[in-house]
């Protein structure tokens, strides 16, 4: 069965959550095999650059320890994780919050669309990361510069994906709604919003990876905050297991966000996951 094919209802965790228990088990086994391969490689390489997974996990556990949660040292793993996560979540929130309404507005207002859309598509492929030194000059070393940069990247990705998807509504859908007496609000409520939801989530899932990559660059280039700095600091002081801990944590942040978006998508997109066997999926 292809990964996109809906799982039969009896094999699902929740009706709408299109996931197989078996698939999770396989993932777990895969991860164990990966860890085993890593272990074998590390033992054979016998290098300080490549500690065994056991060593890294042990360090992970040590790095998680703290005396006072309200007064963590600046470069504590939890503190840096919190800072980085906050930056990503804020940026994604602001980026989506600006891009989706703008895309929906432009799709419906033809005159504005004609003026703004070519420009936005023109700017989309420009690499935003290269503006980081400039952004830091203007916005300083704190959260603002990082959040601004990631927001910029996310905004364009989400805008382009949502604008493309909502611009392709079949004419008969619009005409049938129009013949039912629909006004602008109804088109938004019954056509553009629902059709934008899958696009928003596609954009979110793709953007999470991009956001974390940009975050990493933004945090290594200057300043002493975030997981990017945590990794860089460990690297420069030759504390390799700690560096691995930082890398794993950053992956974990990405994974958690990805899973969160995925679950939300499954819930909001029930109409697309409805299986053909006639079972009602979700509420």
């Amino acid at each position: 069965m292809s990964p996109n094919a809906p799982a039969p209802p009896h094999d699902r965790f929740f009706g709408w959550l299109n996931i197989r228990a078996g698939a999770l088990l396989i993932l777990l086994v895969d991860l164990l095999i990966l860890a085993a391969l890593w272990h074998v490689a590390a033992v054979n390489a016998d290098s300080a650059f490549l500690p065994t997974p056991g060593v890294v996990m042990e360090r992970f556990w040590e790095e998680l320890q703290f005396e006072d949660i309200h007064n963590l040292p600046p470069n504590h793993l939890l503190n840096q994780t919190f800072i980085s996560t906050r930056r990503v979540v804020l940026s994604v929130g602001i980026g989506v919050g600006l891009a989706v309404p703008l895309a929906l507005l432009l799709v419906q207002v033809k005159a504005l669309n004609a003026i703004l859309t070519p420009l936005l598509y023109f700017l989309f492929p420009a690499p935003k990361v290269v503006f980081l030194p400039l952004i830091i000059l203007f916005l300083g070393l704190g959260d603002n510069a990082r959040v601004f940069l990631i927001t910029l990247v996310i905004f364009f990705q989400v805008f382009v994906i949502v604008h493309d998807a909502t611009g392709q509504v079949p004419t008969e859908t619009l005409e049938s709604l129009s013949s039912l007496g629909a006004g602008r609000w109804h088109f938004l409520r019954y056509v553009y919003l629902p059709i934008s939801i899958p696009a928003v989530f596609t954009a979110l899932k793709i953007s999470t990876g991009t956001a974390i990559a940009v975050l990493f660059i933004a945090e290594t280039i200057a300043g002493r905050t975030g997981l990017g700095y945590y990794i860089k600091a460990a690297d420069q002081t030759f504390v390799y297991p700690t560096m691995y801990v930082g890398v794993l944590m950053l992956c974990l942040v990405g994974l958690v966000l990805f899973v969160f978006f995925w679950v939300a998508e499954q819930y909001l997109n029930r109409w697309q996951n409805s299986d053909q066997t006639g079972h009602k999926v979700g509420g």
Partner: protein
Amino acid sequence: MTITQQTSARHSAGNRQQTPILSLEGVTFGYARTPLLDNFTWHIARGETWSVLGPSGSGKTTLLYLLAGLRRPQAGRITFKGQAVTKPNPAIGLMLQAYGLLPWLTAERNVQLGLKIRRVLKKERHRIRAEWMERMQISHIAGKYPAQLSGGQRQRVALARVLALQTEVLLLDEPLSAVDELTRERLQKTLREITAELNSTMVLVTHSVEEAALLTQNVLIFPEEGTLRASRVLCSPFSADKPPHRTDPDFQAFCAEIRAELGL
């Protein structure tokens, strides 16, 4: 012979004669390389039921779009109760050939969509929805999404959606084409009852000669080739007091008459 001459001839022969509810006067319409209507005049009186028959691509659907206010004539005038039709009118219900269901709404939500747009109160909305889903025999699929339905089921959802609005005018584009034979016969009967009961004016685009003869009093025939200018109209020998029946020799004769007009 023009269409106006023919209808008035029939009307004077006994039918009620009144100001038309829908009128096309000298309407010309076409797409880039295919002119469809040329200076076409057609009057539909309140309560009249019409079928539109003709080859594919002859402009039958376009005619409905014009009546629904989704297309503007390039020349001429379309009026509804004397007012020019320039945009969709809430008193005119249209069912598209492609159904126009929203894939992200369940069948029942699709059915009540028009009512919701018209701000019908929730309780009333649910009552009307249940009633029409029952009549279209789709109550059992209320919670399913269009992708889970068969073509015939989707068609019935679309039909229930437009019927639930109880509009003065019903424009239906092949409403039963995808429904299985048994259900179609039952629904044809239901449609007959409904139009009689609501006294709605109906224009039905169809490919089925029997359906036209069974459901409507008048049949408008699109020409094999060229534009619709002076088209042919046939009137049914049946009435509300004397409904047609498939086995009736008069019915068979009427079907034969339509077939002859179509060149079949």
